[in-house]
């Protein structure tokens, strides 16, 4: 990847970032470095409010999102304002297809234990112990589980993970198409 001299001249910071980008690209191409330092590095991490570059409004309907495609830049911190504009409970969850699949099984358990109903979330039941040292507490920073009309905010800093999706893991919703894609540049 050739970088034009004129672009680089004068700004040391840009040069540094550009060089880093180049070296990372080379590493991927060479295939001798594992780009993933666990799922967290690929998915990103909770962001700081002070670093938010823009705010995106996410509307959840039955059963789809508006918008369905979001472009983000590597390292960008975005504030998501999520609102449930539907009549059923929905989730906005940032992850990969694999993490979503695992989460769907967890949500199914929540339905079976009566914690999750079609249009209601029984949050008081979530603290209930399931007898194996786990609870059904739904407080991950990359996810918002909302009943109709509820709103939430998620501030997220994107890393360079590929195939990142936002999805609703309420049983059946993902399969019905309630998911969207992040294109990370």
């Amino acid at each position: 990847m050739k970088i034009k001299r004129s672009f680089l001249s004068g700004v040391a910071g840009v040069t540094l970032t550009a060089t880093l980008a180049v070296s990372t690209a080379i590493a991927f191409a060479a295939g001798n470095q594992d780009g993933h330092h666990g799922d967290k590095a690929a998915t990103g991490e909770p962001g700081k409010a002070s670093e938010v570059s823009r705010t995106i409004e996410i509307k959840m309907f039955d059963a789809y999102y508006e918008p369905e495609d979001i472009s983000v830049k590597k390292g960008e911190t975005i504030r998501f304002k999520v609102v449930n504009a539907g009549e059923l409970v929905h989730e906005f969850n940032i992850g990969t297809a694999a993490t979503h699949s695992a989460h769907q099984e967890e949500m199914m358990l929540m339905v079976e234990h009566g914690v999750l109903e079609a249009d209601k979330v029984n949050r008081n039941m979530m603290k209930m112990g399931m007898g194996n040292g786990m609870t059904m507490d739904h407080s991950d920073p990359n996810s918002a589980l909302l009943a109709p009309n509820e709103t939430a905010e998620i501030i997220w800093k994107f890393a360079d993970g590929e195939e990142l999706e936002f999805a609703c893991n309420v049983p059946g919703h993902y399969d019905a198409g309630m998911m969207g894609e992040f294109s990370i540049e």
Partner: protein
Amino acid sequence: MRKSLMRVFSLGLMASMSTALLPVLTFAGTYNLTVDKVLIDTGDFTKEGIGYNGKSPGPILRFNEGEEVTINVTNNLEETTSIHWHGLILPYQMDGVPKISYPGIEPGETFTYKFPIVQTGTYWFHSHSGFQEPDGAYGSIVIDPKKRKPFRFDRDYVVQFTDKHPHSGKRIMRNLKMASDYYNRQQQTLGDFLSDVNKNGFEATVSDRLDWGSMRMMATDVEDVQGFTPLINGKGPEQNWTGIFNPKERVLLRLINSSAMTYFDVRIPGLKMTVVASDGNYVQPVTVDELRIGVAETYDVLVRPKDDKAYTIFGASMGQTAYARGTLAPRDGMSADIPEMSIRPLLTMADMGMDHGTMEGMDHSSMRGMGSKEDKFYAKGSGIAPTAANGGKFLSYVDLKAQKPLYKEREATREIELRLTGNMERYIWSINGVKYEDADPIKLQYGERVRFKFVNETMMTHPMHLHGMWSILDVGAGKWNPAKHTISVAPGTTVYSETEVDATGQWAFHCHLSYHADAGMFRKVVVEGGPKTASLTTTGKGVPQ
């Protein structure tokens, strides 16, 4: 000179397009159907039958929600015909049932249906005269919504099942009246007797046979009629109807069961199905491996084939005597393995509503949130309760919950009990022991909410269909109970459904198994009261919320 010629040409083309059956995306479309004698080729046999616009199945009618449709139907047969729009809410004069909605359509006559479309989803249409429907007179209806659909798909296909028989409908009815087991080839034999003795002991086996004998029924009677070739979109298993997809696309399959008598257990090995609609109404999405589609029911399912290979759409008849087969593939000419059918089920005493001493353990139904493995829409210990062939999830009525309830929940104003009855020996089918011709109509008052209690006192599964109004099936989900047009009632069970009586006029209400309906399992429902101006352009969908 050339320009005007082209203009005439294109006008002519447009004119002929509108008289052909290409859907015109206006809000007042005109559609033309002819009812014709056609040749049906199943791959196993060819037979003369009845179709629409020269073919069976007839065309897919695509309407838009809010459209005022005009459908001209011309009868090219030598007998009266009719077309009923199954599941559509419309003025009763447009419902297409001879002697209830109108006299029918005489040979050579053209009847014009005109009504507004007040709903969306997958439906179908068929003749309501004689046995024309089993003889091939059926087609499909797809209604697109005004607003965005609650699920995403890249393409959709109608997947319409039927059970085409080498005998005509009239002949089948004659044979059933003559000997009710005429088509029942799986009668238990001496060989079966001896192997049962081996398994259960002599006394138990003799006692079982005597019990069945005293009821004048054969334990194998899961299907009334056998010997048919199941078709998908008019094609038999060898002919292999194929739907093309691009890998990773979401495909919506509009499953319609347009059979005379057959329920199909449908699965697509390698693909899960996400059910998003039932009988035209959206349900909360539920993903399953297999489902049973009753006669006259519809299910919209989403599949997402990820690989560049073919998948088999497999529909085994409920009695596992025949199968329908189609293919989903990225290109024409591909096919996948066809699964084996399962062991033929036998009805048990439980299906007769008799429990011969089997004690149930704890009553799990009272424990909230604990899913019971048993499907409460089948008798406990039933021989026909389905299980998924791959060990996965089989759809139950209990899984169907409305996505957006059509009506507000309220207490029913009264209950009407309908015992589903019959005399298998003489092939008489009835309601409360009375055949249609001897029965009074069921009278309902506009504005009431009736709770129908179906008590199945017979050995067969009956798909009960009320015309003109929704049947809200009680699956135990309160306000989320789904609104359907066809409710299947398994042997030995009691099923409840509620109807908001909001459509004046007279309506048919019957078992949708063709030969049962003809034998008397049928009623006329009369709805009295309602707005005086029940004109053709004013049809409300529900009681104001």
